[in-house]
């Protein structure tokens, strides 16, 4: 006589199959969401780094600011920058938050000859690697530095 108690092997196999088929895309979605959350975290930190760097540069006197910007013209690891090291220690960020995060400062001269000695555009770009990928994402802010001693 056939018992109605318990689960048959076939039921378990079918269930596992269905669950597997259903969960796989869900897991993918979880992974994607996780990566998104991770990336947003990085993005947030990158924003902090970019703002902090741009504000710091904007505080400098005109000529000094330009020199500093040109000095920071190549990709630099955030963790290699002494000022950020101080900042991250101050707000207790983990070094891995900045893992392979780079910044770069680009200077664009003023558009007209008259404005050349009076202003230039600073663009601070911070980039970070996308998890499990060889690509990088970046974030940038732009502002104009003006000569105040006219």
């Amino acid at each position, binding site marked *: 006589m056939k018992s109605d*108690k318990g*689960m048959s092997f076939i039921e378990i196999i079918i269930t596992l199959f269905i669950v597997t088929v259903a969960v796989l895309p869900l897991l993918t979605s979880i992974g994607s969401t996780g990566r998104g959350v991770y990336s947003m975290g990085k993005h947030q930190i990158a*924003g902090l780094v970019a703002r902090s760097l741009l504000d710091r540069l904007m505080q400098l006197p005109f000529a000094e600011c330009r020199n500093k910007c040109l000095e920071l013209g190549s990709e630099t690891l955030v963790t290699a920058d002494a000022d950020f090291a101080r900042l991250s220690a101050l707000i207790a960020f983990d070094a891995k938050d900045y893992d392979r995060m780079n910044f770069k400062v680009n200077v664009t001269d003023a558009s007209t000859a008259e404005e050349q000695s009076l202003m230039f555009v600073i663009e601070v770009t911070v980039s970070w690697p996308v998890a499990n990928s060889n690509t990088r994402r970046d974030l940038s*802010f732009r502002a104009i530095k003006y000569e105040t001693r006219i």
Partner: protein
Amino acid sequence: MKNSSNLWRPQRGSIYLLATGLLSLLILLIFVLSSHSSGRARLLTLADQKQTALYALESCYGDIVSQLRIRIKNRDAQLLKSFIDATTGQQPAIEYSPGQTLSDMLAGLQVTYKRHEIIFESITPLAYPPIMEFPADRQPEKKGFLRINCEVSYVDHDYQLSVKVPYRTVFTLTPVLRQFIFFADHLDLEQPEKIGGGDRLNLISTANGAIDDTLTDAGVRLPLCLGMTIKPPEKINQNNHEEGYVFLGRSDKNIVLNLAGEVQPGEGDLADLWQVTPACFKPINVADLQIINASINSSKGTMQNKTLTVPLKGRNTRANLRLVGFCKELADPRGPWADDLNYTLEQDTAYRRFAAAKETLALSSGLKLFGPSFEAGAISARVPYPRNIRNIFGRVFNRFFVLGLFDFPSAYLNTKLLYNEAAGFQPPDGKSSFGENYPFEVDSGSYKNYMSRCMSGDPGPASDFDHRNIPANLDEAGNPKLFSHADFRGTDGIKLKEPLDRFAGQWLHNLHSEALRNDPALIDSSIIGRITRVYRNQTDFKAAAQLDQGQLLIDGVVAIDGDLTLDDLPSTTEIRGGIVLVNGKISIGNLARGFVPQIEPPTQLMLTAAYRDYLKELKPESILTFISLTGDQITLTDNVQMGVHLISLKKLTAVEPMLVYANPGKVMFAGAIAVSTPDIEHLTRQFKTELPLFSFPPGMATAEPPMAVVISDELAGYEYEVR
């Protein structure tokens, strides 16, 4: 009935239920995660947009301020006027449109510029100290704010930034003091004696117009030196203010300056008898009388004298009144002067006092306030002296001799008019070489107006005020007059309600003084309230002034909390004037402004039109004023300073050397000096071999003193809004 333990035994089909529940939970979790994640992403995106817009807006207000500054620098008259005349709620006169760089950046960011607004806010005039009466019809200095509102649109939102930028309008020349080429409010401390070795103002001994170093009298200070000569650029100028006034104080103390003689016409650098006008021979009516140059030989050479020739009643007779300054020739026992003076002035108590210390007769003033050189031909000897070219404030008196002669040349009548104070005295008739008698009869005045006399009177304090003291100034009617603060009329309309020696105490304060801390009202009503930038030290100041870029840009009133040492500036340095307040000592090297002296000796520069033109080219807005707020010493490490105003004033009870040349050479100074005690003795010793040249750029006395509009680098308010 089922056993309760059966409830936990899996039933057929329940596996599907479990799987469905699990899947639901997973879906729910993913939904929550996704929702949270997308919310966070939206927030992040918004934050980025907000930040991008903020930087764009900061660039916008920066562009507005930058354009304002450029137009201010370029002296945009309308814009400057709008700042100077500003009242709360008005707008500066500027048609602003975003610059190209800003426009390009905004386009690159896809940010749309929407609008801007610039409004003056909380404008208040800066107060003046009680001593100053600022004219009601002129705009005072002011402080206030520029409210700048900018709005941009970015993605789906509008963003607005509203900032409050402080600004000030301040004069870049020091009121009152800017009109004085030389201002010494405690010079009285340098003249404890009115004549003699203790008189630190009168210590130069000259012979034949040159320095005499032969004096050995113990009472005379050796070695001998040249004077601090302050000479106006123009030989004749109807506008006295353009020559720079002089104040010798205190206002209630007498300063007596001995006048030197002159040996050869044109050797004006040691002759300041120009200050004496025949108007002092009252009550003789001198209006149409001749003044001639007369010379007399002495064993030391020829001396030139200014001589007033007064016709007498007797036909062809005249009285010649010869002005003789204090010089070495007077003290020469072998020269004619000693006999003349002894003979004619025997009864003059003042002369007897000088004669008792004869060497002191050779002293002349260490401070020389030159005017037009009569002998150099700038003024015709046939016309009366013009009004004194330089206004001298303070109780300042001159001292010199008058030798009176009763003269009829063709009859060889040449009788000395001896000193005699007796009322109604009538001298004996003059006798010609032909034996004829000529009575001395005058048309106006009495004998004592014509007799030989020492025009300094008794050097004792009681008689310093009598008619025999000749003030340096004349009033409009040509009468001698002492100039006090009540006579000061600033070209800008400023008047003074109190004596000049009180000005510094009300206008200048140590940055850290107790008075400022205890009475904040003092800040607004003094130079401290005009400060537009403060530097912690001179390094910061030099960086801001852009010295390293070949510039010295002040443009306002800046303060340095400490000493200032400014080495020689390259003559190509671009200089924009202003006031530098130094809370400590000041040391300045060459500030030549492209000036290359071509004339040797440099004192002759004054005679060249090129130099006078150069002085006129020194614009008021380019003048550099250095003020030691602590009243410390100002050291000039080199000898050429053009367009410089040096100020170090404080209350003193003893002389301090407040102006020192570290390397005195051919001093050429165009500007003004205000020091409580310059220590003339020390200075003149420094000028032992080279006569210094102090001159006044007429621009410093402009009726329209330059006003700087200084927009602060700091912000007083900041509001950012997302709409």
